[in-house]
């Protein structure tokens, strides 16, 4: 069975600084996706970034980038130039590249990030 671990329940960062959220996962499979989702307080869960396991290049979306270390099963999220609007719960998620229940999204427990002015 696949598992996702986010070891930092809460983090804080000063506005304009950089913060890294950690995520590790466990799987014996080779084909999968990894995601970071952001859920602001009382607001919609939105996709931040997506990584396909077969791609060695780390995904980047504007101020958000990942450090994907497949051998170490690590998938950390770096937020550069943090903004107040980045305050949210961040979920790391894993999904096998297959259908059926085996392909369900598996979430970590989340990291609550607070950006301070």
């Amino acid at each position: 069975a696949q598992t996702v671990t986010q070891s930092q329940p809460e983090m804080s960062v000063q506005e304009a600084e950089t913060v890294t959220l950690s995520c590790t996962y466990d799987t014996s499979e080779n084909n999968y996706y990894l995601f970071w989702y952001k859920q602001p307080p009382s607001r919609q869960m939105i996709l931040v970034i997506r990584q396909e396991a077969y791609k060695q290049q780390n995904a980047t979306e504007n101020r958000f980038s990942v450090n994907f270390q497949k051998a170490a099963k690590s998938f950390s999220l770096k937020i550069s130039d943090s903004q107040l609007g980045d305050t949210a719960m961040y979920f790391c998620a894993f999904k096998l590249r297959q259908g059926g229940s085996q392909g369900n999204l598996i979430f970590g427990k989340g990291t609550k990030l607070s950006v301070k002015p």
Partner: protein
Amino acid sequence: DAMVIQNPRYQVTQFGKPVTLSCSQTLNHNVMYWYQQKSSQAPKLLFHYYDKDFNNEADTPDNFQSRRPNTSFCFLDIRSPGLGDAAMYLCATSRDFGGVGPDTQYFGPGTRLTVL
């Protein structure tokens, strides 16, 4: 803009009184999911529809049912809500490209259910 829409955003019901939550999507995705999310926790998958095929998670209580009358709409029925069913209910959709399973899930804004 293509999106996932949930109605209502807030729902209050009484203990034991049936309630229905709705989800619609304009993404034309063939897979739709219902999750339950309690405060400060990760979403928990209740069930999903793969086209018209219903897939229930093993630990989803019988109290929860779902209907998908067409590609665009999906409903969550709670037959006899208990106090423990108070939560945020999230609908999500994804598309299966064929052969490799569904891709990225896109979430609606959620319906917050209060049980009195």
